[in-house]
């Protein structure tokens, strides 16, 4: 089971955080700090896995963003890399050539996509099509609501 997923920039700025276990705020902050320092201090061309406490950290850099997740001891690291990659693909498909700014300005969308892909630290849907479909459908629902709300009601 994945424990958390973090996205942060090369400067160590957090761009997205998803906690699959409920942790107190203070602990979360500490973990984020540990992760950013640990991952950012890695030299290029080293392997993408780290050990941290009793968790395995798997990270990968895509352009200026680091995607970093924590796995339990028996989880498959390569599978985690594929999950990260799949998430990037999903973002890419949704935003169309995704960049860091897309995630900054539409951070709630990035969460919604993630929520359709993973849940409770497990893969929820492996098919890219059905994820895209359900995100789209929810968005449609949201958009129509917004239009409805912005209309004058009298």
């Amino acid at each position, binding site marked *: 089971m994945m424990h958390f997923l973090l996205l942060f920039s090369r400067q160590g700025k957090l761009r997205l955080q998803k906690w*699959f276990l*409920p942790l107190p705020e203070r602990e979360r902050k500490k973990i984020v700090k540990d992760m950013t320092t640990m991952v950012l201090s890695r030299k290029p061309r*080293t*392997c993408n*896995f780290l050990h941290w406490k009793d968790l395995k950290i798997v990270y990968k850099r895509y352009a200026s963003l680091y995607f970093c997740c924590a796995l339990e001891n*028996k989880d498959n690291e390569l599978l985690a890399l*594929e999950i990260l990659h799949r998430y990037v693909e999903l973002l890419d498909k949704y935003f169309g050539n995704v960049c860091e700014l897309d995630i900054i300005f539409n951070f*709630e969308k990035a969460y919604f996509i993630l929520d359709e892909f993973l849940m409770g630290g497990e893969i929820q849907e492996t098919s890219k099509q059905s994820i895209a479909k359900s995100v789209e*459908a929810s968005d449609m629902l*949201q958009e129509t609501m917004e239009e409805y709300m912005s209309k004058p009601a009298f």
Partner: protein
Amino acid sequence: MALKIVKGSIDRMFDKNLQDLVRGIRNHKEDEAKYISTCIDEIKQELKQDNIAVKANAVCKLTYLQMLGYDVSWAAFNIVEVMSSSKFTYKRIGYLAASQCFHEGTDVIMLTTNQIRKDLSSPHQYDTGVALTGLSCFVTPDLARDLANDIMTLMSHTKPYIRKKAVLIMYKVFLKYPESLRPAFPRLKEKLEDPDPGVQSAAVNVICELARRNPKNYLSLAPLFFKLMTSSTNNWVLIKIIKLFGALTPLEPRLGKKLIEPLTNLIHSTSAMSLLYECVNTVIAVLISLSSGMPNHSASIQLCVQKLRILIEDSDQNLKYLGLLAMSKILKTHPKSVQSHKDLILQCLDDKDESIRLRALDLLYGMVSKKNLMEIVKKLMLHVDKAEGTTYRDELLTKIIDICSQSNYQYITNFEWYISILVELTRLEGTRHGHLIASQMLDVAIRVKAIRGFAVAQMATLLDNAHLLTGNTQRNGICEVLYAAAWICGEFSEHLEDPMQTLEAMLRPKVATLPGHIQAVYVQNAAKLFATVLRKHEGETDSHAAQETSQLLIDRLPLFVQSANLEVQERASCILQLVKYIQKLQQKKVEVAEEVTALFAGELNPVAPKAQKKVPVPEGLDLDAWINKPPSESESEDEKPKAVFAKEEPKHSRSRHTEVDEKELARRREARKREQANNPFYIKASPSSQKVYDAPGVEHIPVVQIDLSVPLKVPGMPMSDQYLKLEEERRQKEKAERKKEKKKKREKRGKERKADSGPESEEDIAPAHQVDIVTEEMPENALPSDDDDKDPNDPHKALDIDLDKPLADSEKLPVRTHRPEVLKSPAEDRVNESIPQETKKRSGKEKKEKKKGKEKDRKRSKEEKKKKKHKEVEEELLESHPEEAVQSEETKEAATPPTSTSAEASELDFWLCSAPVPPAAQEETAPSSAAAVDTSSAAAPESEPDEPKDAEPEDTKSSKHKKKKQKKEKEEKEKKKKKRHHHHHHHSNAGGEDSVQNGTVEEEEPLPPMSNYFLLAENSYIKMVYDIQGNHQDESKVVVSVIFENKSDSFLKSMEFNVLDSLNSKLQRPEGAGAHDSLTVPFQLPPGISNEAHFVFSVQSIVMPQKLKGTLTFIVKSDESSTHEKLDFKLHFTCTSYLITTPCYL
């Protein structure tokens, strides 16, 4: 209203939306904090408005700020408001915010229960979906308990989108509310064969996670998963299934055999590295589980090792890393096949990537042998010199020590070499592991007697050159080594060449800058050395040398007497006085050496690390009982942090205390600490704890730092390398000698054998020293078991539940509509009635369900609905029952589980047997599966599904009209008579099938109201009522039934029931428990729930009334906190309570 909306939309025009906020933050790089604080003020204003759109916008912005690290917990209630909006747009934002901000400590979570339930049953799938997603992030035990049933229903939703989410969230629910696992599991299992692949994969994920924690309960699913594995083409799912098998195979080797073939096929065919890696891992797990009996799998091992070699040689660092990781797993069972790749692994030690080097180090640990140990360590020592970062260097250091000391120094042939390695390691600057090196030195010197002479000489040199090690005493961990050195020199001082010189070295003024605990050892061992010197000079006519030594001590010790460290001070002043006295005697020419030596006589043997734990508790000693009256609440809280054997807290909490009383307490504590420091029997936990006693005085003495950029070669220090050469030579020589011998033999015997010119085998290497490893001491009558070191806090432990056992009524998930009744009824109506009826009924039903066997799974959902309907009826039904029910239930419970599990197991056996198995195994399993078929066929006719339906209404009627229709009652009593006969019969021959019959029969039995429950004790949390019944089977036993009722609105758990036995009456405790151990009450109590437990007492004389004192301890767990509570009670055994009630016939 309309105006309001207009106003709302105008407001929104001027509000910042999320994009504006983000842009604003980016534009205010210099004064970000200030900008954000104004934004937060705005948000607070927005949250005060009625317009939900404005609120949602504000909450959305807060979610962003939360990610930036700002505290938004103050807005938790607003988040709940937005969550409960009926518009999806806002609901989505609300749930997102909740999933990001809420955690178990958030108190408003309680308020969300109904909202979430409403959303779960919403007709719009995306409402439900969003609620499930949010819930998965912040589910608490309470939410899990309250919503488990709703979520379980969603698992059969028509939309796969909801089904897969519901299945996934069930795992979180199980973790928080383990009781839900058994009722929900059948449905979860169904989902493995769901038509939608997403749902299927979700179910695989959840069961895989569950099974990895408690594999034995999921073994029966193996055939189903095997089918999935061979049919699925989805790699994501395949990986999970294969991982699951990896967890199952250690429990069932035959499963492993069945798996090998499909797995090797996958290894050959797949192109996905993640799948390949998972397959290799599982094959390794299989091979480990088979390692003993199966010689024919060397091909599979070779395949794995080959594939791993390819991974390690790959240019992708990730694959290299994982290859090494997997290799280390093979190493444990098949070291030979890995050892042939030593070249590759040593090569990895030179990799740029530290993680890869660390993995390679792990592998080296298992690859050493007597033959190559020195060589490998030499290579590692080179890396130590080269290593740039201290963390990696420290890692190397610990690895070197691990490698050398593994399995009781098994691979060390030359301990002189090892001591030299340790001494060389002391040259590392700034390492944290001085302590580790020190303990190794001590261990070797104590346990390897032959090495003591050499070790002492080395340690003396170390002490002499101590200044090189103590560059900066405050930071430098390496000075710990001096602790060991001083102790070794003192304890084994008879091996010292020049004790006088060492003594002098140990009393140098610079020593006073060392940490206190090291100084203390110095002082103590100086005294030992003094004794040695005295003895050496004993008998010499000129006692000048001895007197000089005394003078030296008298000159130098005052420095230590002034030490701020109490330990040092005390020892020093003691020894100083002693020496002064000795000096007086010396001046009178009295021979004192022998008496002084006697102070330190006797061998100190090593004690096994677990020895303390293994000392058996003497009979009649209760370590948990209070010796004096327990102190008041506040005091005990105060004392908590101070455990005798644990580390002392370095901080004094004095500043916190403001009240006079508190100060007084702090003062007392201080005094106690001082006392402990002076107490020689008080064992210090770790040297670092000593710092507590360090007054600022010592630290303020300026220490001149010697900054040495060039590593010094300490004069006289041995180089381990030379040992390597020596060792080579020695081995060559030995070999030659052996050859010579062989030649001689051969000459004698004629040319019978050919000389083996191959590489020398392991056994040929004789150790250089006659190593005499002293075994560690264990207390007498220590239990040999290596008891579990499992983590008691593991949340998955609670999920270790037998899933094959049929469901009991009490295990049904709480359904909201019936909750109020459940809450009320036990409190008001039932006190003087007998509730055991319920348990009895349940047990009867349990049995029926059991009989139904497999069909039950499919029918369960139907049945559950039925049960819900009947629930109210059942509650009316409650009435008293004959006393033997208690007893019979116990025996039933003992008798039944084997039947069900054995049936399941044999099913699995059957499946496993279809694989080619060695004939022996087949023979073994064949009869058992045949037997299982027998029992199931025997049970089949009885297990007509209609039976429970029929039985229940009949029962209802009979109980309702019982009082009116005496005639009927009579009939039934007659029936009961028969039944009782049955019952005894059952006990006499205790057959499995018989017990089943017995159960069905008892269900229909009418139950006369004979027992009365009396109040046992009560407080604000819990109420206990009890009843005592005699026992038909065994006159010397009585059964006390206690109904525990939770009166609070918190969760009660870890209830423990204990009674102080009297001479006449004793509580029956399980075997192995002490006479004062308490019994764990086998259930937990959610708020408002009551349940019954039975305790058996053995009674000597039934003519003596008794009052037994007892206590119930339990933990009250509420949302914020959990507290320990206890309740005292007195159990009255009147003489009449021993009476056995038998029905009378009118």
